[in-house]
Every structure is written in structure tokens, then in C-alpha cells.
């Protein structure tokens, strides 16, 4: 495997980081997972460019990213539609394309969703830290020197020319997620739902919450009707572990959906977003509206299985095609 200069960041836009599926197994040291907020988009992007699912990609937020190919490289853009263009031409998303040396891929702004993923054939050649290439912005390590990408950064890929043959791969159109701006997010009650009044729990389910502009990779802050705690219950708890998708209700009664940049917290958690809906959280943007519905653990696992089966089917289809191709080429 030879590492080759594959792309240069001309402008990072609002925020662009290197992310893979995250860093697990170090929670005991306070090390959060980080990782792609929309893991579904990242996995499909990698498969489209013939990478392992967990390869690192660029995660870019809302607008402004411009990158230049330093060699011919296979790319796929998945996740939010931030209106990607190659030079002046619109680029079809959820599909692999060759970005020719010298061509510029740019993102002018969101028509739906919040974060796009750019997968590069041959991945991003940077050393994993604690088992992952994801950037931890709060702790300043991993990814590209522990920071968000800046103009002038050059990224390397492993033998990108070997992946060019996988161009024109397409994800199943019927399975491409839509990002409506009005979201229904499925949750499981708890672990501290009993600390809220029945009225408070109803408020949580019946209200429409608006996503605050203070949201970022650490959490989605919501504005809307306040969720009442029971009278004898203090606002904080003894700090304990939490996961991305935990919905904390601090003293002010406004819920916050925790994303993957912390391992612990000291507020009560009324509910937890189901695993199958976690990727959607990465596509929610300020101003969007969220409605929560509660489901059972069994239903949540069914939903997760459904998502995994789609990915598995897509992989099988790709490997069928690849084996056919091998038969044609002697």
C-alpha cells in the first residue's frame, strides 16, 4: 500500500473534521467516542468507494467546504444535500465518481440535512489514536492533528488508483434517507423518567421542540415547553455514564440530546434515542422541529436490525457485482 497525496482542503467551510465510526473501549478514561454523527451515511459512503465500512471520511457541516483532487481519486458524497458540485457541475450524491486530478469539489449550502460525508477511495491515511481516526475536538486529539481541518491541509489516501474501478456504484434509491426538517425521533424512556411528573412526561411527548442555534457536535439543544421535575427532586444527580442519544433535562427544563463527545453527565435523563435513529441526529440543524415518540426496547432492536439488513443487502449486491467483474476480466 502506498500513501499518495489525494486531496487538498482549499476551504474547510463552517466545520470539517476527519471521522470514522468512533472510539470505543476507553470510556473508563473519560474518552468519548467522537465519530461520524451520521454513521449510516459514513458507512454507505465507504462502501460506495470500495473501502471498509469503518474507514475515515470527511464530515462537513452546512456549507463552504472546497477540496481539490491532487490525484485521480474515487469519491462519494452521502448524508446531507449541501449541493455538492465538481467545478460547475452538480454532483450526484450516494454514488461513486472519479474526481480527476485538479478538479474542485465544493459545497454551496444545505438543501436538506446538516452534515455531508465525503468518502475517498483508499481512505484517509492518518494514524489511528486509541483505535480510531476520529477527531476529538473537546480533547484535541485524533483525526487531523486533533483539530478541525484548515485551508491548506493535505490528506493522503492508500493507493487511490486501485479504487477507481469501483466508480458508478449507486446506493439503492429507495433506501436513501430523507431529512425533512420536521423530525420524528424515537426514544426509550429512562433511565430517570420517573423523576419527572406525569405532566412533564406528557409535555415531552406532545410538544414540538425547536433546535437551538447553540447546537453542535456535543449536543442538540432544544427550545420548547419546559419539562417538570417532581417537587422533591433536585436538578442534578451524582454524575454517571451516558451515551449519545441520552436526553438530559437540566435545571431550566429544556431538553438536550447528547451526541458523541462526552461519556458522563450530572443531569437527569428522561429518555434515550434508539440506535436506529442516531444517524438522523447528525442531520438535524438549527431551526428544525423535533417530536419525540416512545417505543419499547424490542421495537428499537427491530428497527436497528432493519437498518443493518439494508446495509448487509447492499454489501452483498456490491460483492456479487465485484465477483462478476472478476469473471469477465481474465
Amino acid at each position, binding site marked *: 500500500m502506498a500513501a499518495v497525496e489525494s486531496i487538498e482542503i482549499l476551504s474547510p467551510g463552517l466545520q470539517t473534521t476527519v471521522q470514522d465510526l468512533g472510539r470505543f473501549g476507553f470510556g473508563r*478514561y*473519560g*474518552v468519548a467516542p467522537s465519530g461520524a454523527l451520521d454513521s449510516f451515511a459514513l458507512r454507505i459512503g465507504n462502501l460506495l468507494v470500495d473501502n471498509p465500512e469503518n474507514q475515515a471520511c470527511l464530515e462537513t457541516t452546512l456549507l463552504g467546504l472546497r477540496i481539490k483532487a491532487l490525484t485521480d481519486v474515487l469519491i462519494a458524497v452521502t448524508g446531507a444535500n449541501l449541493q455538492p458540485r465538481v467545478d460547475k457541475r452538480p454532483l450526484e450524491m450516494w454514488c461513486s465518481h472519479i474526481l480527476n486530478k485538479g478538479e474542485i469539489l465544493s459545497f454551496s449550502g444545505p438543501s436538506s440535512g446538516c452534515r455531508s460525508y465525503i468518502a475517498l477511495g483508499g481512505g484517509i491515511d492518518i494514524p489511528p489514536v*486509541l483505535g480510531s481516526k476520529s477527531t476529538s475536538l473537546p*480533547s484535541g486529539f485524533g483525526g487531523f492533528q486533533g483539530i478541525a481541518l484548515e485551508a491548506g491541509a493535505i490528506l493522503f489516501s492508500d493507493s487511490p488508483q486501485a479504487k477507481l474501478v469501483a466508480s458508478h456504484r449507486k446506493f439503492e434509491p429507495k433506501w436513501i434517507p430523507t431529512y425533512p426538517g420536521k423530525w420524528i425521533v424515537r426514544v426509550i424512556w429512562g433511565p430517570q423518567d420517573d423523576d419527572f411528573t406525569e405532566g412533564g412526561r406528557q409535555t415531552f411527548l406532545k410538544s414540538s421542540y425547536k433546535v437551538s442555534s447553540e447546537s453542535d457536535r456535543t449536543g442538540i439543544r432544544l427550545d420548547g415547553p419546559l419539562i417538570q421535575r417532581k417537587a422533591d427532586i433536585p436538578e442534578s444527580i*451524582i454524575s454517571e455514564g*451516558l*451515551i449519545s442519544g441520552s436526553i438530559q433535562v437540566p435545571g431550566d427544563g429544556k431538553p438536550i440530546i447528547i451526541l458523541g463527545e*462526552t461519556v458522563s453527565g450530572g443531569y437527569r435523563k428522561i429518555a434515550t434515542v434508539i440506535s436506529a435513529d442516531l444517524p438522523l441526529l447528525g442531520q438535524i440543524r438549527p431551526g428544525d422541529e423535533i417530536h419525540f415518540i416512545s417505543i419499547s426496547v424490542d421495537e428499537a432492536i427491530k428497527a*436497528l436490525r432493519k437498518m443493518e439488513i439494508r446495509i448487509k443487502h447492499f454489501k452483498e449486491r456490491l460483492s456479487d457485482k465485484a465477483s462478476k467483474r472478476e469473471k469477465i476480466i481474465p
Partner: protein
Amino acid sequence: MIYDKLIFRVMGDRALLVELGDEISPAINKKIRELFVSLDHQEIAGVIDLVPSYRSLLVIYNPLQISTLELENQIAKTQNGMDPARIPSPKTVEIPVVYGDDYGPDLEWVAAYHKIAPQEVIRLHTQHTYQVYMIGFTSGFPYLGEVPEALSTPRRETPRTHVPKGSVAIAQKQTGIYPVQSPGGWHIIGWTPVTLFDPQAEPPSLLEMGDQVRFHAITAEEMANWQP
């Protein structure tokens, strides 16, 4: 109070919160550590991460690999079958601290709040051995307890947006050390040259849950000559 048996709470479809008590106490935290170390040793298939804290252990798992019920059974079995005498003892770590002035900009405030001299704050802070109740908030941040009642101080009304790496701070009955620059609402009383978190090191955190920590005061000159 230490619970007679484990209390399990589901955290969504992929994490289980295991509680062993309902308060901050060295004894409850010790039991959490025993369960944590035993489970870590077991390497149960499907378990992705373990996050021990004051009175609970969060077990994060892949629900397509192991069911909640199966996991609860395995955890209960581990709890019943373990021999606390075989759990390795935690280590004791000495942390040198330069107190006050620019290193500890809140030392004077904390002293004034308690109507004692800054020297007395330092004496109280260094005289005690603290237990690492958990590592959380940011990578490598140790929650240490408990400071003497005479030092128990409410959080700052306005948190700082940038607390320097190495800051030693107090809030309520806790003391802690900021391992990386981050926002923070605790009162900064000193600074340590010791590296608490190094992602390239194995393990990446100097301190682990359960460790015992003692602070000792050094001068700014001693700090300049300090070698790890």
C-alpha cells in the same frame, strides 16, 4: 446506602446502567470498581465499553450481539461469583501543585469565602488522601473526593470558557484536575505540571477510577525544575 442487590436501568437499546448505591461514598465506589474490574476481565461478547462512576457502572453493548436480559444475567453472575480479595489494589499517586497567584487565580476567593487564610486552604487541600471516584467530563478528568467540609465551595457563578490544562480546582466536596484546556465552572486554586492525559500513552490516563491521590505544594521555582 449500599443496595442489597444490583439495580439495572436501561439506557436506550444499547446500554445498561448498573447501580450499587444511592450516594457518594468510598465504600459504594469500591464495590463499583470491583464489579467493573471483574466485568472487564470477563470480556463478555457484545460488550463495547464500560464507564464506571460514583455509584453506577454503565455497560454499553451491541444489542444485536447480546440481549439486555442475557447481559443482566451475566453481570449478576459476575457479581455473585467474584472474590474481592483477588481484585488488584488501586495505586496511590502524588501530584505536585503550585498554589495561588496566576497558577490558582481563585485561591484568594476560596480563602475569603471560608474566612480562612490562603495558606490554610493549601494545608487542608494537601492533608487529605482523595479517591478517584470516576474519570469523566473530558478525557482524563478525575473526580476526586472528598475535600474537608471546611473547603466545600459552591461552583463559580459564571463558568470560565477556557480553563488551562493542569488546573487544580474545587467545587462542592470535589476536587479535580483539568487534563486538557476546556470550559469549566470549578474554582482554580493551583496548577500541576503533571500530564494527566496523553492519548499516545498506554493507558492514556495517568489516573484510573479507584486510585488514591495526594497533593503536595511546590514553589514556582521547584515547578520550573520539575521532571516527570
